[in-house]
């Protein structure tokens, strides 16, 4: 680095600039800054022509202890690890245990759950695994 040729520095600056733009572009353009613990579930949605589901953990943990869903209703602790479909929900399983028009709004409000941009992969937003690159947004 000591004996820089003239122009090397400019080149390096340009490279760094380009890198910054790429990084910032990645951050600014499709940047997801959703809540920690927001889960995107895309087991079947894309294939069925629906937007993937966003499950907001924060909203639900204000209202229910973890055990209600994860012990009583049988939700596994893994994004995409529950084979949920609309038939099961209508049948009162999984989300359908509450989203039945009694405890929470019923399933005709499709777009309240199916609200992620099409093609968003299954993930836990801002999870350690996502930050380490597994299932990161856009991959």
């Amino acid at each position, binding site marked *: 680095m000591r004996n820089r040729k003239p122009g090397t520095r400019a080149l390096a600056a340009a490279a760094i600039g380009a890198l910054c733009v790429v990084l910032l572009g990645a951050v600014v353009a499709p940047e997801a800054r959703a809540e920690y613990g927001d889960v995107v579930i895309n087991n079947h949605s894309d294939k069925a022509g629906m937007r993937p589901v966003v499950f907001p953990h924060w909203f639900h943990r204000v209202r229910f202890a973890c055990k209600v869903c994860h012990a009583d209703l049988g939700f596994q602790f893994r994004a995409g690890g529950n084979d949920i479909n609309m038939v099961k929900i209508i049948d009162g399983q999984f989300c359908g245990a509450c989203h039945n028009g009694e405890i929470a709004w019923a399933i005709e409000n499709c777009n309240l759950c199916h609200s992620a941009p099409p093609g968003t992969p299954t993930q836990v937003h801002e999870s*350690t695994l996502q930050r380490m690159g597994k299932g990161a947004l856009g991959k």
Partner: protein
Amino acid sequence: MRPLLLVIACCWAFAAAAQQGKAVYDKSCALCHAAGVAGAPKFGNAADWSPRIARGAAALYTSALSGTPKGMPPRGGNAELKDADVKAAVDYMMAAASAPAKAAAAAPKPAAAAAAPAAAAAPASAPAAAAKPAAVAAANVNAFNRLLRPASRQNPPPAEDGIHDPKNDGTHVLQAPRSAFDALPRSNAGNRVNWVAALEEKRIAPRWDRADPKASGLVLDFNIVREVKGSMPDVVYPHKQHTEWLDCSNCHPAIFIPQKGANQISMAAILLGEKCGVCHGKVAFPVSECRLCHSKKKDTAAAAAAPAAGAAK
């Protein structure tokens, strides 16, 4: 004599405003606008600025003050800026883009009249502006936490959070996190909410049963201390805070064998989403909060007295 004084005073006032705009620009705007990062209109670039200027200064003020969906953070990400500061910076940038020659010609005169060194105040002409960014970046050497998300950009509403589709009508009906979080104790990680404190202070009352608001669970109040290798403080695992949210069957026996010493736990496993990492790093407070778990200071005297015992473990 009087008209001359007036002219000098006017020029001086103009220069002062320009100088304030420049100062704000250098501090808060140049990081993106100097180079035109991520679609930001580039400083002094008439092509970038003319369509924006055509829509009027008021629209530009609003964008600068409130931010834009394209990535402009409110007040350039510096919440401490006053409205007047932001507007002065916008004026400064507009002037540089719309009439660089005029600005360059106008600035030295009042500066000279005020007998001040001209260099500082002179809004540069186009080539000089191109040379500016490097100098600005160098002057900003003491800025820190550049990549941290400022408070103004935490907990955004669903339509702006990047994970909800703004084109979806349902997105706009969903509750914005801040409307709930503003009433809750804060933390530095995760949702920026201290959920355990929120529960303790009874700010939230999560149901223990799907349908019965009065149901309550059995809270188990006993701590497990895990001695850890190296210099990290030992881990204190509180059953209390966990059983306020969870059922025994959530963790035992699938994740943790309910017997002291029977569970191999490592930070690597936790980072990979196993053991504590089944929740911590996904929804419960993340692994960045080391000291919330590693909270029991080692008894260094005892440790020094029995190094062999420690090595044998």
